[in-house]
């Protein structure tokens, strides 16, 4: 896997007693490879998502975007301008009902049109759980391929935002990775958001695309302006190293990168950081190759530790790489609690917790 240029915004560490409003990480932009297109412009993650949907709708006349509040531009402005450009029959508000949004989206896809269904907060995806898990994921399988809803993509906001507490901070991916038949994808930045979202929309399987809300405005980089797609089920090595492998996704990739830099500076430990990108079906092979090289693995995610996707990675890697492992697979994750409000700095797997995990792993 070729290295991407990593521009560290700054190497300064972050105090636990962060000032209110300061994020728990620094966004590390990456330079998009040439094959995604030469012409670039600065976009934040929100604009990148908007751009991806614009391109999807321009290239696919059947594509429609719907959900709560998307018509005026969306509560996070991701659909800004799209109704004016494509018409209110293609970009429209639905009533406030996630099970309706998901079911409706499945039906649109079954009829052969591309459905981009927005769930305003991943925390509110659960009314749609039956439709997604019992219906969308199983449509092709149960009908012997006579019917399918591959043209459905569900977009939902995701992850810690600094003050979101129980119901505006969740990372629900593990609730879906246990269900064969859907794809689950999480981008770490604007370029990935655009390329991965276009892949999800165009992939012939129902997909859930989780957008880290804290990155909407905070993550900005030069993003190729053209129509490009990043393949699904392919992990990306964002930082190369030889002593420890960290696997992460979304916002936590940047926390891991910062911890890796610290480990290099303070411990002389060379850490490889991999962005999983597609959580399901995941790129097991890529991780295996890395762990065979380093012999040590840490999985880090915001979601609670128990039964988080880190558990699956840990189980699979110890199966595949048992004799290569120098230390147990470690998981640096959120605690097994609902997501708290004022205790967020203590809940999150911060740079310091990941750093400490690296330290314990190499000293095992």
């Amino acid at each position, binding site marked *: 896997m070729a290295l991407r240029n990593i521009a560290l915004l700054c190497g300064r560490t972050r105090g636990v007693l962060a000032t209110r409003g300061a994020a728990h990480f620094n966004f590390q932009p990456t330079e998009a490879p040439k094959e995604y297109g030469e012409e670039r412009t600065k976009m934040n993650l929100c604009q990148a998502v908007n751009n991806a949907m614009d391109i999807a709708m321009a290239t696919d006349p*059947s594509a*429609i975007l719907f959900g709560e509040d998307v018509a005026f531009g969306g509560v996070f402005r991701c659909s800004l301008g799209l109704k004016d450009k494509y018409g209110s*029959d*293609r970009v*429209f508000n*639905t*009533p406030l*009902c996630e*099970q*309706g949004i*998901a*079911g*409706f*989206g*499945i*039906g*649109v*896809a*079954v*009829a*052969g*049109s591309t*459905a981009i269904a927005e769930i305003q907060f991943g925390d509110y995806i659960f*009314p749609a759980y*039956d*439709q997604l898990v*019992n*219906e969308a994921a*199983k*449509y*092709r*399988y*149960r*009908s*012997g*391929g*006579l*019917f*399918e809803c*591959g043209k459905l993509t569900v977009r939902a906001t995701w992850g810690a935002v600094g003050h979101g507490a129980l119901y505006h901070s969740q990372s629900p991916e593990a609730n879906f990775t246990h269900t*064969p*038949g859907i*794809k689950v994808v999480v981008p770490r930045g604007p370029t990935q958001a655009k390329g991965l979202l276009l892949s999800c929309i165009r992939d*012939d*399987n129902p997909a859930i695309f989780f957008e880290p809300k804290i990155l909407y405005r905070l993550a900005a980089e030069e993003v190729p302006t053209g129509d490009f797609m990043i393949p699904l*089920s392919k992990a990306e090595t964002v930082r190369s190293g030889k002593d420890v492998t960290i696997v992460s996704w979304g916002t936590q990739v940047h926390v891991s990168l910062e911890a890796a830099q610290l480990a290099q500076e303070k411990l002389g430990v060379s850490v490889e950081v991999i962005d999983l990108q597609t959580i399901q*079906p995941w790129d*097991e*092979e890529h991780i295996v190759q890395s762990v065979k090289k380093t012999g040590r693995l840490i999985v880090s995610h915001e979601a609670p530790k128990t039964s988080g996707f880190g558990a699956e990675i840990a189980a699979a890697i110890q199966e595949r790489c048992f004799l290569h492992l120098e230390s147990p697979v470690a998981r640096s994750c959120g605690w097994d609690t609902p997501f708290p409000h004022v205790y967020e700095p203590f809940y999150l797997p911060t740079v310091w917790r990941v750093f400490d995990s690296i330290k314990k792993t190499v000293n095992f």
Partner: protein
Amino acid sequence: MLHIAKGRGLARIFSRRFATAQDRDDFRLQEYSQKYLGYRKAAFTEKLELIDSSKMAAVPIYRVTDGLGNFIDESQDPNFGKEKSVRIYETMTQLNIMDRILYDSQRQGRISFYMTNFGEEGNHVGSAAALESQDLVYGQYREVGVLMWRGFPLEQFMHQCYGNSMDIGKGKQMPVHYGSKEHNFVTISSPLTTQLPQAVGSAYAFKRQPNNDRVVCVYFGDGAASEGDAHAAFNFAATLDCPIIFFCRNNGYAISTPTSEQYAGDGIAGKGPGYGLHTIRVDGNDLFAVYNATREARRVALTNKAVIIEAMTYRLGHHSTSDDSTAYRSAEEVQTWGDKDHPIERFKSYLLRKGWWSDEREKEWQKEVRTKVLKAFGDAEKTKLAHYHELFEGVYDELPIILKKQRAELDEHLAEYGDRYPIDRCLKKD
């Protein structure tokens, strides 16, 4: 004009335009009417009165024939003609015979499960005959007559019940979970009511096609109507102006739960106006009424207005082969319903009156159908299952790496322990 006056440090804004109470009322009534109440006429009342719906008359039940099958208002006769009428009758009776044979076959341990359609043949075929073949149908599980009307072959029903290698559903689901792309009948799934919002989405997609000539018709029962997905679907369909017909088969029972324990309002039709749906309640055992209502519903739906039809009927059979309904209702109740109101009997009386059917033909037909059904059944029973590798197919559009590995793992296991598995029931790999 705005006057801004300051008094004791507070700014007060007075508007001359809304000086009078009447002005204020007019403003609000117009806002409420146009923005809150869908342009319905809005009015204030000073009388404190709670609406008690239990005191209101139920939505009337549209019918064309009386209990003996005679037309009450001849102008409502859809005038099917002989060919169509005979086809309708043959479909209803073929369904009835197939149901009896397949129910018994489950009792004999030959198929694992079955659900009959006894008593509902009229609402199936009446509505199916009013739809066009290009209309997309979503079902619940008790709408076999719709699929049969559309031409789904007898053998295919059997193959699906056996889940054999000829099953176009590839043996993935329990019996009666039929589906057919060719016949525009979306594959049945067990979770109830999930098909309702999906049907709305498909209808919306059709609406966007230029010169759309397709409606979606989605069937569901009185019990299924209680699920949240029904509320979601009704609301989306009306709000988004979808070309959809919601067809509720109110057959009095959801397994053992009678309708008196399912809802307290005016059935399912009573909900319709609340959502902004065009609504009609029909005599579900009066095939002509079901036909006429569905025909009209289709016409309205094509103007992009959602319609709900509640067909009143009675479930003569058990819920399924896992149910013995004598545990919660008397045999006498079932018998009485079957005697006083059977959709097949009512339609038959019309055929006989017209001279398009006879007792002789009936005997012939029963024999003919039994033979056909038993032959199809026997063939299906003899057909092997697909190769067990089929179990890994169709999870995604392409077989993912992990399933290739797991499939190989199963093969390795079977190489050693294969004699413990029903491999002989499956086709061999070619």
